[in-house]
């Protein structure tokens, strides 16, 4: 087949529009909804409080998606596998955390100090549990298939996803389970320009930011960074250079699992309802976030998570909840069309 002829004789104004869209189109697309609703707010209420409320809710919800998305992007960045089980590892994180409430005797009546110490302990145990689980999944399901066609580990990933979902199903049953609202998450802490900031918001953002920062710093400062990039670029060459590829990949899964566990606990505290199916929904959204931000790119995953959180909340509030998934994925399509490598660019073997 011949290559399609490229139209090189574009008229000047058209070309200008084209390059403008190429540069700023994405930002325009992303700003359409907030700007339109912001103008609407100004006209009807005379202020931007309602929009601000949407964005705060969006950022705190998005922070949880971001933590899950980082796990997706880490794994994809290094072995180019969409780890479908990742969302379910996150769900198991929530369940473990809920179980540990009971073990540590945490109830709504527990005092502030007890709660802080208890929750920190819950966080550590949960992160350990999900981190180990993720490493185990890699060891059992993906490592033996390293030389196999790419489809093989993809199928084991789907398999693990279903397996974990059914573990969750046996654990807490098929319905959404209310968990104790330990931190009284809806309590308003302070109000900025009419926008209420709740304890849940503060928790989600204050816990996510240091976790992501620690994870990225750990990767950058330790020798893992070089090892990971080398492994991602060319596993064979990395091995020849004396890098232990298997250990590097295991560490990556550990890191992803640890973050998923933290996200699981934050989710349980923030939503106060856990469900075996939450991992499927979260996984879909987090994967979308990772792609939106540029798969393999850690900052991109965080950005994607926050953006999707905001889109969801704005849509829930203004358009109607039945349209929210449609709008989220319409945005994904638009972003892919304008910038196929995602907002901040891919960082994978193929992308170089």
């Amino acid at each position, binding site marked *: 087949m011949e290559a399609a002829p490229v139209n090189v004789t574009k008229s000047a104004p058209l070309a200008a529009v084209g390059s403008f869209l190429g540069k700023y189109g994405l930002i325009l697309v992303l700003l359409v909804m907030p700007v339109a609703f912001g103008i609407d707010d100004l006209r009807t209420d005379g202020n931007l409080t309602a929009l601000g409320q949407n964005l705060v809710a969006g950022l705190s*919800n998005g922070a949880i998606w971001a933590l899950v998305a980082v796990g997706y992007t880490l794994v994809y960045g290094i072995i180019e596998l969409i780890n479908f089980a990742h969302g379910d590892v996150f769900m198991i994180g929530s369940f473990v955390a809920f179980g540990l409430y009971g073990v540590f005797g945490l109830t709504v009546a527990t005092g502030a100090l007890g709660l802080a110490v208890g929750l920190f302990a819950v966080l550590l145990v949960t992160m350990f549990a999900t981190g180990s689980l993720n490493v185990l999944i890699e060891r059992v399901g993906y490592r033996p298939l390293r030389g196999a066609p790419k489809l093989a580990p993809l199928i084991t990933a789907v398999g693990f996803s279903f397996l974990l979902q059914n573990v969750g199903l046996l654990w807490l049953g098929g*319905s959404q389970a209310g968990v104790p609202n330990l931190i009284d998450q809806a309590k308003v802490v302070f109000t900025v320009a009419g926008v209420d900031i709740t304890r849940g918001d503060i928790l989600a953002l204050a816990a996510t930011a240091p976790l992501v920062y620690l994870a990225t710093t750990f990767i950058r400062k330790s020798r893992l960074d070089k090892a990971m990039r080398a492994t991602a670029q060319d596993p064979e060459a990395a091995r020849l250079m004396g890098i232990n590829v298997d250990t590097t990949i295991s560490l990556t899964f550990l890191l992803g699992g640890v973050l998923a566990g933290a996200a699981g606990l934050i989710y349980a505290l923030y939503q106060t*309802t856990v469900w075996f199916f939450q991992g499927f929904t979260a996984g879909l959204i987090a994967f979308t976030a990772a792609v939106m931000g540029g798969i393999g790119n850690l900052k991109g995953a965080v950005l994607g998570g926050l953006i999707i959180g905001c889109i969801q*909340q704005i849509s829930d509030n203004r358009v109607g909840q039945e349209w929210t998934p449609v709008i989220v994925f319409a945005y994904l399509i638009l972003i892919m069309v304008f910038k196929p490598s995602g907002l901040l660019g891919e960082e994978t073997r193929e992308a170089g």
Partner: protein
Amino acid sequence: MLRNRKLAIGAVVSALALGLAACGSDDDDSGGGSSTGASAEEVTVYSSLPLQGASRPQTTAMVQGIKLALQQQGGKAGNTKVNYKSLDDSTASEGSWEAGQVSANARKAAQDDKAVVYIGEFNSGASAISIPLLNEGGVPQISPANTAVGLTTDEPGADKGEPEKYYPTGKRTYARIVPKDTIQGAALATVMKQDGCKSIFILNDKEVYGAGLAKNIENSAKEQGIAVEGNDPIEKTAANYRSLVSKINADCVVYSGITANNAVQLYKDLSAGLPNAKLYGPDGVAESGFADPKEKGIPASVGKKIKVSVATLDPDEYGPEGKAFFADFQKEYGERNPDPYAIYGYEAMKLALQSIENAGDDAGNRERVLEEIFKTKDRDSVLGTYSIDEDGDTTLTDYGIYKIEGGELVFDEKIQAAPTE
């Protein structure tokens, strides 16, 4: 994506269920082949209810009610021995009724020559699937809990093509002993009016039951002069409803749907986002799986703000038969305050047994039993005196309003509401 997954699961489940049904039919044959139409010494009554998920405590109480009714008559209707088989129309993964499971149950009953009555389903959306299957099989069906209007009539709240589309043979085979949602909608509007609601917001779960009842509430509220600010659907899979709730300005909010569609999260977000709003719910959430924090339901602090309607009254509000039921139930199962639908499970079986007995020598003939069910006139029952009309609806209209206190549903008042036409 989600839809596809559900379909896939549905397909697998129905395949499994078909396999099970095939195995089950062996047992049925072993009883000796008495064909429909001949006189029978033994007949079977099936029930199909969601025995897993959020409604489990409720349906467990219903099955206990059904068993109690049969046991009190020594397992017999007149001279005919009655066997009871309890089927589950839910799957663990759905946490509520599931289409494939419902149709498998309906087919199982339709293919069993000895089946003369099918008690079910619990959910209106599920009955929308089983009614046509049982209708074609000619199996008389009694629902102890369905309230959706469109299952029996085309009154307001029904969708286009309802109810005809459920009865392919053109003959009615379905009766229910719970007042339908034109009445429940009016009851909810009445209680909201009483409580001083000037404006309300309705949220529905998009199911046959939830979306239909939402329309009934809307109509009745408007008729009673209450402003309806909106009637929005919710997504079952949403992580939370915070921003959905923040757009509501009404002083009262009512959710029209079932517990399994994320009602616990919704009410928590409603309570947090609208601290001063009064909250209401229908019989879809009138169960301990919703009300009791120990059953993973809502916390007590949210429960205090909610009133729910269900067509069951306080034992004291019933006549002697009703009072006797609650005493017997407590004696048998040690439960003083059973989930509200226990009494409907009991009465569904009682009505089935009475109809089988009335059919006399033709007890094994589905058509005759069906005739007897539709002949029900001024029946003195635990629920009060009622008749079954030509649509299969009960003539009862009493709705009870319950408060939630410390995880328990506590009877508050009786509402007698006239349906909005």
